[in-house]
């Protein structure tokens, strides 16, 4: 008996336990299993990319452009090349020009192919001008200084609005950039232009009792993973290029780089070791291409590591957007029509431009029931550092605007913000009207919603935060501090569990003599705990402990394909592959045990390292292993499986915030955060809580302190960790988190995602709480003291 690939009926049985256990009876899934890799990390063992450097390694450095927009008229590297210890200097003249996208995504690539390894034009302050490989980092830095460049300056476009002006300079005027027809319009500086509609908007707005409009702005922000981008490349003894990199997408890196480097995929191996944080910034080819080029030219191993300044100016960031909502509401408080018009910039290069903004639409418009929807997006090029994937992938932007907008409508209607949402949020059975149109660059799969715990999350959350205090005018005043006001705010949230019909992952599982198992998958743990979660899924099926599963992951030679760590897909998709593989292995184990015990396989279950029959007899897994490997009918108990789901199983959540606002200074302090998540069955509650904790603190920064600030000529003004403020341990609010497990039939053991949804809610909840505290509604984040102060002054 085996699972056929991609049978929709089988997809809906993913939640079932092969031995029929109920969630409460499960032994490993749902338990706080300590991370399998934690010991080596607390001991400081070598585990990250830069912890192993081969002897003779060269150090690579990049010369970054000081100008936001310029052509390289002349570049002279002779002095740099002549410096002792310099082994290679590359300029655009040394590169075979192949336009690619640095965005790590599946085929066909939905991002424009607009990037060269080295180009004769620079398009943002920080863009690549040249690259050096030298014996030491110091020599490499000295070589950079010796490179002489003559630029022809071009007028830069820094503000989003300037990109579409008729006389705006064209940032991608090269003849060989390509993208999706109709979507990619470089001569208008449009990296992505798209719209989709469902139902009948005219009718929808006509039905409305009132129509509400609002425009909201979100900033360009940074991942600030503590480990910078870092990469090591070398040619092995078979002349294959090996890339060891802190990457979230090893398989995409291999496939995308092959034509760029002009070597076939099969001559490239990509290995991902431990990653010190990624958050989407490493779903990207940031330095692997240039590092590999230097290895190919010098025949030596090359190491490249970004400085923190380079992280700020030459890595990736979250797309800033201007979002315009127009919503029609009927007399009974239900939504009759909704339009989201989105204007964003992707910076100088278009990676993720279609898909991030598309995801803004497919999340923001999917939370509330509405048959009449319109979504339109324009993503322009500007001469800013490029934006890309960042945790949430369009949802933090969209849910910020949506949840402030919904709150505004509730206030206008005189309704409680929770009640207005309750009237409108999606229910089991609902189909998202734009599901087909918004499929991440291709046709999507409209499947009905099968599980939601949003109502329970909200009920529990309102209780925990003390939502009724909103109605008490006395509570809003703080005794002893007459200038301070308190407020409560909330945001309802939806996200995704992978992208239906696109995301796929595979798993190999084999059994060893001692009844330990080797589990290999392409899925990419970037500190998310994926390795442990996937081992738990396997162990649950196999009746063993998670520690008996030895994980090896994310090596393009040794593990099967996985699209990588993004779209909150690892538990839902890669976990499905692991579960299927484990179930196959369980069947093989039972077959062997059946012969040993002389009892039919249907009477057997796996438990506690044993195979147990209904009549009480048992053999240990170890005995089965030895029997199968050595004694009779010898074979390797093993399985190879993959999983892709067409099902729609979004997680839901609710975020509550309690704030204090100093009305004289505009300072906003968050006192409490309450987060309730429906992630289906939590595979590891510690892991889910960890994702919530980190996501909330990232969203705190989004709402209050983080913003990339640019000069008029495109220089980043706050490109360091003192001037770009990430929240620290001594300024965190008190938090509570809880899980409402509304299990989905299509998730492994009922699991849905948890990784990104926690970044979506704090920012809108804070804005809504500021409103509750002061009567002032900002439509822009971060809500800096000056912005709040200005708004308060304006209100009078």
């Amino acid at each position: 008996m085996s699972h056929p690939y991609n049978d929709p009926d089988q997809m809906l049985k993913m939640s079932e336990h092969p031995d029929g256990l109920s969630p409460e009876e499960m032994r490993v899934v749902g338990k706080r299993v300590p991370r399998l890799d934690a010991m080596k990390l607390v001991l400081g063992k070598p585990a990250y990319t830069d912890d192993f450097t081969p002897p003779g390694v060269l150090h690579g450095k990049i010369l970054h452009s000081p100008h936001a927009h310029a052509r390289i008229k002349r570049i002279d590297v002779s002095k740099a090349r002549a410096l002792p210890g310099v082994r290679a200097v590359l300029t655009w003249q040394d590169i075979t020009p192949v336009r690619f996208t640095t965005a790590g995504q599946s085929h066909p690539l939905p991002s424009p192919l607009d990037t060269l390894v080295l180009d004769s034009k620079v398009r943002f302050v920080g863009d690549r001008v040249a690259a050096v490989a030298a014996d030491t980092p110091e020599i490499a830095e000295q070589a950079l200084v010796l490179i002489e460049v003559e630029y022809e300056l071009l007028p830069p476009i820094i503000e989003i609005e300037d990109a579409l002006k008729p006389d705006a300079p064209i940032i991608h005027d090269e003849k060989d950039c390509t993208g999706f027809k109709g979507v990619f319009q470089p001569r208008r500086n449009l990296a992505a232009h798209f719209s989709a509609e469902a139902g009948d908007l005219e009718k929808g707005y006509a039905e409305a009792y009132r129509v509400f409009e609002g425009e909201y702005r979100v900033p360009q922000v940074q991942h600030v993973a503590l480990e910078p981008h870092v990469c090591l490349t070398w040619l092995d003894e078979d002349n294959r290029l090996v890339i060891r990199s802190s990457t979230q997408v090893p398989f995409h890196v291999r496939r995308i780089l092959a034509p760029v480097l002009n070597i076939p995929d099969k001559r490239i191996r990509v290995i991902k070791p431990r990653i010190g944080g990624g958050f989407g910034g490493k779903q990207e080819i940031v330095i692997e291409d240039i590092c590999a080029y230097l290895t190919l030219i010098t025949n030596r191993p090359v190491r490249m590591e970004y400085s923190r300044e380079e992280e700020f100016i030459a890595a990736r960031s979250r797309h800033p957007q201007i979002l315009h909502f127009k919503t029609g509401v009927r007399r009974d408080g239900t939504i009759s029509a909704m339009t989201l018009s989105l204007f964003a910039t992707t910076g100088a290069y278009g990676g993720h431009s279609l898909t991030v903004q598309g995801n803004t639409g497919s999340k923001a418009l999917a939370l509330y029931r509405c048959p009449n929807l319109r979504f339109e997006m324009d993503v322009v090029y500007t001469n800013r550092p490029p934006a890309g994937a960042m945790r949430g992938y369009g949802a933090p932007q969209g849910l910020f605007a949506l949840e402030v907008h919904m709150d505004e409508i509730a206030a206008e209607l005189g309704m409680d913000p929770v009640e207005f949402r309750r009237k409108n949020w999606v229910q089991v059975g609902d189909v998202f009207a734009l599901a087909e149109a918004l499929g991440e660059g291709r046709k999507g799969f409209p499947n009905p919603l099968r599980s939601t715990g949003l109502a329970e999350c909200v009920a529990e959350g309102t209780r925990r935060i003390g939502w009724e205090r909103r109605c008490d005018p006395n509570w809003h005043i703080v005794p002893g501090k007459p200038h301070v006001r308190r407020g409560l705010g909330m945001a309802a949230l939806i996200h995704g569990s992978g992208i239906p019909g696109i995301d796929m992952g595979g798993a190999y599982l084999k059994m060893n003599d001692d009844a330990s198992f080797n589990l290999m998958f392409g899925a990419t743990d970037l500190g998310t705990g994926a390795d442990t979660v996937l081992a738990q899924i396997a162990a649950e099926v196999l009746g063993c402990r998670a520690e008996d599963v030895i994980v090896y992951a994310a090596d393009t030679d040794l593990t099967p394909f996985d699209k990588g760590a993004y779209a909150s897909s690892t538990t839902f998709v890669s976990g499905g592959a692991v579960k299927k593989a484990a179930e196959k292995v369980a069947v093989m184990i039972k077959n062997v045990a059946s012969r040993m015990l002389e009892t039919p396989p249907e009477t057997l279950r796996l438990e506690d390292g044993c195979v147990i029959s209904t009549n009480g007899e048992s053999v240990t897994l170890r005995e089965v292993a030895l029997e199968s490997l050595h004694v009779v009918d010898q074979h390797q108990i093993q399985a190879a499986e993959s999983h892709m789901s067409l099902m729609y199983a979004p997680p839901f959540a609710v975020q509550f915030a309690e704030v204090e606002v100093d009305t004289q200074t505009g300072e906003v302090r968050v006192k409490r955060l309450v987060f309730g998540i429906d992630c289906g069955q939590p595979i590891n509650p510690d892991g889910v809580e960890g994702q919530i904790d980190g996501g909330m603190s990232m969203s705190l920064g989004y709402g209050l302190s983080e913003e990339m600030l640019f000069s008029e000529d495109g220089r980043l003004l706050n490109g360091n960790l003192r001037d770009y403020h990430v929240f620290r341990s001594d300024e965190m609010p008190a938090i509570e988190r809880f899980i409402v497990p509304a299990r989905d039939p299509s998730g492994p053991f009922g699991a849905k995602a948890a990784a990104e949804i926690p970044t979506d809610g704090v920012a809108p909840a804070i804005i809504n709480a500021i409103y509750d505290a002061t009567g002032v509604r900002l439509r822009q984040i971060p809500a800096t003291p000056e912005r709040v102060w200005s708004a308060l002054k304006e209100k009078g």
Partner: protein
Amino acid sequence: MDILLIINGEERQVAVQVGETLLEALRRLGYVGVKHGCEDGSCGVCAVLLDGQVIHACILLAVQAEGHAITTIEGIGTYDQPHPLQTSFVKTGAVQCGYCTPAMILTAKALLDENPHPTEAEVREALSGVLCRCTGYFKPVEAILRLAQGGG
């Protein structure tokens, strides 16, 4: 120049460049538990103990550390005998990507060595020199307090 560094109780004669930071020297010597996250002492993942006090190794020159006792994460525990803080971090689920974990543990060790029963505010103040983007600091603080309150 040649200097004497005392690392985890071991004396090592090391050739360093004048401008080489302690972070660069330590990683070069194999102490890769000391991490690089920035170059100006603003992220904290390079934390080591200098005479028992937590400092940023990226803004201390190796020559300035001569003669002082340097403690890195490698010096406080092993697989066979992990430091109670290391065990507490693992048990509490306080390790995600792990990149800032050695810095947090060393910071906590310095705190507990001097103040075995800190308040939560004192723990948070001590940790404010380490940036973390994964945990929001919640479980690390819990791991430290659990140990401090459990009388470890």
